């Protein structure tokens, strides 16, 4: 009987926490609805792959060459070409953001093409979105080079190409941005449940005094911690399973690594995130402050400092150092490798070790602070 008692207490706590989650629609929404919405948006809607980019062409002197050049763009799915008759009209469209780039063919395009080496084509891009602008320049250059080559071959002019670049892209040969964004979302989704939801739910209990009430009962610190963490752990893993299933079955992202490695790493990451959420709530004990801090210290970094969107190696050294305390960073690296490359131990082991370290740190610190409060 004596050995049964702590288990009964724990079960009671678990039941209480689970009921609390189930009765509040906002927890379920954060754990399942938001992840699903994000997955659908990133899977179907949002991507970094240019497609149907509106590009204007200024053709002042229509002719066979100009038509064939513009035609080369019409065949590509990257572009949605529009033709303007005057430079004025084209520039106005670029200014009004109707097109993101403008290809201006000079009036004597055909003659210059045959005669001299001077540029008959000017490319103007809207540089506000620098990344898209640069990719657009690259695409235009590519289409131009192919078209020119064909044109010259037809006229039997041989031109020298000293070096040709032959690119082989590993792991993601079509360069589908979905293949790395959707696995990365896994990390964002688990951060939502682990850090944000946990921080807010516990902060609420502190604010309302129900946690203090719990502390005066005979339950131990460990029981409280397990009772708190386990239900959210289950919720977070549920979100993970949903995310992985949608990534693989719905969006056709390859999963080349093994499932058990993914499960182990996800467990470590979720524990680190939960520990962080717990710590935020214990330190702040105020829902609003906990929510703000969870967004600023956990959620936004998971998006911006984790390597999910932006390359960590290119960040300034100071920011690069900061990324090391972002748990999401390690999990993003693991997830991208597991999905697209496979079980590469040289990548997985050090990152998993870092996750384990962070989980131990956050959970350990939370436990200490919680114990301090009881004493």
């Amino acid at each position, binding site marked *: 009987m004596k050995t049964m008692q702590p288990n009964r207490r724990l079960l009671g706590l678990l039941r209480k926490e689970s009921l609390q989650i189930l009765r509040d629609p906002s927890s379920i929404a954060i754990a399942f609805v938001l992840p699903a919405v994000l997955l659908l948006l990133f899977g*179907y809607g949002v991507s*970094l792959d240019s497609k149907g*980019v509106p590009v204007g062409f200024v053709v002042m002197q229509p002719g066979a060459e100009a038509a064939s050049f513009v035609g080369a763009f019409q065949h590509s799915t990257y572009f949605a070409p529009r033709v303007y008759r005057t430079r004025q009209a084209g520039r106005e469209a670029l200014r009004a953001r109707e097109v993101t780039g403008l290809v201006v063919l000079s009036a004597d395009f055909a003659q210059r093409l045959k005669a001299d080496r*001077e540029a008959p084509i000017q490319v103007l891009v809207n540089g506000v979105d620098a990344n898209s602008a640069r990719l657009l320049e690259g695409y235009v250059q590519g289409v131009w080079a192919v078209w020119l080559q064909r044109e010259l071959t037809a006229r039997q002019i041989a031109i020298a*190409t000293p070096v040709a670049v032959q690119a082989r892209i590993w792991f993601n040969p079509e360069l589908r941005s979905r293949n790395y964004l959707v696995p990365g979302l896994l990390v964002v989704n688990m951060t939502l449940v682990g850090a944000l939801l946990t921080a807010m739910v516990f902060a609420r209990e502190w604010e309302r005094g129900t946690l203090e009430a719990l502390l005066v009962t005979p339950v131990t610190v460990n029981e409280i911690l397990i009772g708190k963490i386990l239900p959210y752990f289950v919720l977070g893993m549920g979100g993970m399973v949903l995310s992985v299933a949608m990534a693989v079955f719905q969006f056709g992202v390859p999963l080349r690594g093994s499932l058990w490695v993914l499960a182990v790493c996800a467990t470590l990451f979720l524990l680190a995130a939960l520990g962080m959420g717990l710590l935020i709530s214990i330190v702040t004990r105020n829902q609003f402050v906990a929510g703000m801090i969870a967004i600023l210290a956990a959620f936004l970094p998971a998006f911006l400092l984790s390597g999910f969107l932006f390359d960590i190696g290119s960040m300034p050294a100071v920011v690069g150092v900061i990324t090391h305390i972002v748990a999401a960073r390690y999990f993003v690296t693991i997830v991208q490798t597991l999905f697209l490359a496979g079980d590469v131990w040289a990548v997985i082991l050090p990152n998993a070790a870092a996750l384990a370290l962070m989980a131990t740190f956050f959970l350990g610190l939370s436990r200490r602070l919680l114990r301090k409060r009881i004493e």
Partner: protein
Amino acid sequence: MFAHLLALTIKEFLALFKDKRSRMVIIVPPLIQLLVFGYAASFDLNAVHYAVYDRDHGHASRELLARFQGSPTFVLAGQISRQDEIAALIDDRDVLLVLQVGPDFTADLTAGRTGQLQVLIDGRNSNSAQIALNDVNQIVSRFNADWIAAHGLQGAPVNLVSRAWYNPNLESRWFFVTGLVGLLTMVVTMMVTSLSVAREREQGTFDQLLVTPLHPAEILIGKAMPGLLIGVFEASLVALLAVYWFGVPFQGELWVLYLGILFFVLAAVGVGLMISSLALTLQQALLGAFLFLVPAVVLSGFATPIDNMTPAVQLLTLVDPLRYYLIILRGVFLEGAGFDRLYHQLWPLALIAAATLGTAGWLFRNRLGSH
């Protein structure tokens, strides 16, 4: 009427600011975030680690490879001498790409044939891969042009001249810092307003407010004021930081920017109040705000261009206030766009603000009284 509003506004500010930590989290973190994220958020690559597998060692390959070593973008991680070393380097993320030069490279080039430069690149992050590949192509095409000129060959007869408007050096930091100005304004405004009604309701003080002689419209305005003032203040602060710290140019007119800020903050306040009056607890309100914030950021064109989205999703972005605000911010800061060119962004924003504030007012009258 005015005295009522003033009293209510003061009360709301006191409720928000009586806690020192609440004051802190409203002002300090967004500034730190802008500093950290402003440096982090960029698609530009400046440290592409690469390895070289040179099977030629002729003068042409040396000349070509020297250009990569001289480039500020590329960092040479090492030379390899066997084919089977490549896989481990890329798999383990030691390098992003491996340049492989075939054994006949120099011989091909001197004979006027085309030499092959094989680029093996890690596609796990497809965006970085694509940008790095673009950089490789640029270096190679400059090499080609120089080689053709030096050896008197017949090159391509013409070239493109490319120019970028508004951002001549194509710095993606300018794009993201202006985006962060919008993002942080929205986060702070929404969090502040969404808690306003819900917290009073949770503590039971909202009913007391309802039995005062205050008109529901007055309560609504009183609740909207902290979010509005804090939002405008926050937006000004981060905008100043963007200009004076990050050196983002400010080309447009201040009054157009503030018109945009005002409409946007009002729209965010409206959404926040709607969520707040629907929520039963503070927790629901804050999580509800989050449920709106995240898709709003994803759909806004903050990082992923709206042009790349599928048509159905593009339609969805039309109701996202952040979408218009980001265009206004980037328009005013970078393009120097005036009222005439931002008019088409300002009126939808005003419309969204009117709709959300109107709905919030309706909810105040119809939902809150009954509880």
